[in-house]
């Protein structure tokens, strides 16, 4: 339900601005990826808790079911998840978690005023002090770690689920 004075078109416009990085540079890409990864990882976390909760009886957890129930639930879940779509999905989650973690640390440092340049007189063709080399390095570190997490997840999946 929308608040008073907020039209549907303005919500769509806001989402477009938030999700399309446009041609504003690396920092805007980082902003979009950070928000998307935050939302996706939160949704994954909820789904993950619900999925693993099924092993011990889901919402009827307070009356612990028999062992055979948990065993059957586990086997059914593994059977359901054992397909390429979930494999790719899990690898993407690995990428997003890796990125969100390191980029989050970069943002916390920036919010405390660390790893930024000092105010200096503007000069043509030089990037602003907030786009410091340390900030850029941390951004690329987060991308590198995210790619590593993606590859590691794919490798782990091929070894665990495809013996």
């Amino acid at each position, binding site marked *: 339900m929308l608040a008073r004075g907020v039209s549907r078109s303005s919500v769509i416009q*806001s989402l477009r601005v938030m999700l399309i990085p446009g*041609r504003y540079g690396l*920092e805007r890409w*980082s902003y979009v990826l950070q928000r998307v990864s935050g939302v996706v990882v939160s949704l994954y976390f909820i789904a993950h808790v619900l999925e693993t909760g099924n092993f011990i009886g889901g919402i009827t957890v307070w009356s612990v079911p028999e062992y055979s129930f948990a065993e059957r639930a586990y086997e059914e879940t593994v059977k359901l998840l054992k397909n390429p779509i979930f494999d790719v999905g899990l690898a993407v989650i690995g990428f997003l978690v890796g990125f969100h973690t390191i980029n989050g640390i970069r943002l916390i440092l920036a919010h405390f005023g660390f790893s*930024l*340049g000092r*105010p200096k*007189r*503007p000069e043509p063709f030089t990037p*602003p002090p907030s786009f410091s080399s340390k900030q850029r390095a941390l951004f690329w570190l987060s991308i590198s770690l995210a790619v590593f997490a993606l590859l590691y997840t794919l490798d782990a999946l091929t070894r665990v689920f495809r013996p």
Partner: protein
Amino acid sequence: MVEKVKFRVFRYRPEDGGRGFYKEYEVPVKKGMTILDGLIYIKENIDPTLSVRYSCRMAICGSCGVRVNGVETLACHTQVLELRRRTIRVEPMRNYPLVKDLVTDMTPLFRKQKALMTWLIRRDTVEQENPTKQYLQSEEELERYLQFTYCIQCGLCYSACPVVSTFPDFYGPQPLMKAYRYYADSRDEGGEERVRLVDRFEGVWRCHFAGSCSAVCPKGVDPALAIQLLRRSALKG
């Protein structure tokens, strides 16, 4: 050498109501011609109903802020041929109420500036009005805020900010940067009060450091840096 470039200009007439639309104009372009020159050509030779705001034509007044091919820029500061496009999309700035065509109402920006008391505050107002001595600053003290005085209040940063788009109550880059400019000034005595004003949800805490404000500033000012420094001050208390 003269070549033809297509200007795809956003048109909006409040009397018609509803949404705006795009209209295309073919403009003869030569070396050195700016987007503003193109818009003036359209107004003088093709369509006199086109509305565009401008004044100095040399990137000093900050009146002609528009979005060219999706990025905020001063129309007088952007040369057509440097864009290397056959079609150029010109739209009004975002995050401001639209008045007509490319003209936006800058009231939200100035209202927020005023709310953050972006002026020099001295406790002794009598002395401020009639100073009895000079208030000298060292080079170091000057450097702390000088970069932020280059702002010409064109409002491009406010338009580029994705947070203002999703949360219009956010003060936005320019007003917060202006607040830091006075906070960092050694002559200012309103530091505590100013930090109290920005230390809130719609203040510094809503900035997500997307950096678009600093990326589009035609004067090289860095509002993203000012907001982070202001946030550090708010944390220190």
